[in-house]
């Protein structure tokens, strides 16, 4: 028998719709806030709020278990990029301690058609915010920042993710 879950299956939308909407948001924010550093902060905050909610969607869709190791986490983040942005970043540059890695991509739907003249704006600042928010909900505190950015002339875009600590007091009962 066929599954009845058609409503919940990932809805496909044209990525251009997302790209343009996001572009409109960023340019509007630049108009209103002026200082690009504040825009970066705001974008990251929006991303954080999205991540906090998006994680539930990710868990419900993929029924993934808890990550007890950074490599698993990297895998899941990669999977989330595939699920939500239909892009495949590569995970590289592991630190020796295994607590820090980079996500590298050369094409991101969010920044297609973008040409920047503004130097301090981080156009995709939403993404690190979302990663941070989502991981915080599964009791993982991370730091997330851009090392390279294609929009600033680098060959690829590189996002660094660093494990800070496990949020022990937020771990749900039964898992501590």
């Amino acid at each position, binding site marked *: 028998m066929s*599954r*009845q879950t058609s409503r919940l299956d990932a809805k496909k939308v044209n990525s251009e719709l997302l790209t343009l909407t996001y572009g409109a948001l960023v340019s509007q924010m630049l108009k209103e806030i002026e200082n690009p550093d504040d825009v970066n902060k705001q974008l990251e905050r929006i991303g954080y709020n999205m991540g906090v909610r998006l994680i*539930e969607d990710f*868990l*419900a*869709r993929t029924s993934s278990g808890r990550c007890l190791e950074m490599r698993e986490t990297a895998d899941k983040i990669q999977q989330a990029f595939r699920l939500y942005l239909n892009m495949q970043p590569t995970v590289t540059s592991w630190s020796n301690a295994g607590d820090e890695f980079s996500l590298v991509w050369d094409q991101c739907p969010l920044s297609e058609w973008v040409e920047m003249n503004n130097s301090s704006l981080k156009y995709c600042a939403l993404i690190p915010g979302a990663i941070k928010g989502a991981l915080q*909900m599964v009791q993982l505190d991370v730091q997330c920042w851009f090392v390279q950015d294609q929009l600033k002339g680098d060959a690829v875009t590189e996002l660094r993710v660093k494990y800070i600590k496990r949020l022990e007091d*937020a771990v749900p*009962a*039964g898992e501590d």
Partner: protein
Amino acid sequence: MVVYGVYIVSKSGGLIFNYDHNIPKVETEKTFGFPLDIKLQYENKKVVVVFGQRDGINVGHVLISVNGSPVTGRTLEDGRDVFDIIEAKENYPLSLKFGRSRATTNEKIVLASMFYPLFALASQLSPVPKTSGIESLTADTFKLSCFQTLTGVKFIMLSDPNMQGAEVVLKRIYELYSDYALKNPFYSLEMPIRCELFDTSLHTLLELVEKSGTANL
């Protein structure tokens, strides 16, 4: 497969959603002569049958109305005390309606926050580290199934004790929650869920479960 209700408890132990789906309504109305052959008592702000079970009126049932006028606490709508009426011979024959009392929203909130430490206790008592806590709790008349997400939200369903595949239903409810509650921009986290779309799709899901089971979820 009957589902009695669904509850969602937030990470911090507050009841953020409750839905009574299919609770059998037990109500009996009967005309009595003097003296009343049922012992009544006032407890927990309700007039309760304590002894003298008969004709479908069971111990534990609550007095709902006297001669058709509803009882709140121990008084009638017009302010008269129920016990004064019952004890006075001139009021008979008297028609009394009894039924099973339903938990009020406040009581449900209390019950939900009681389940929270129970769940934590169960995982503490576990002989092996890292348990899931209570997944199912069975009594003769119902089964409670609980699913805790990685983020700490608990989905609880009360159903028929023979219910099969409760985990599947709970996972589907989780999907509905992540879709209709969390993607609603006007819903703030940890707050009670008041989303009509969520209510209706949950209702549809439970109807489907009752009609055709969990096999094709």
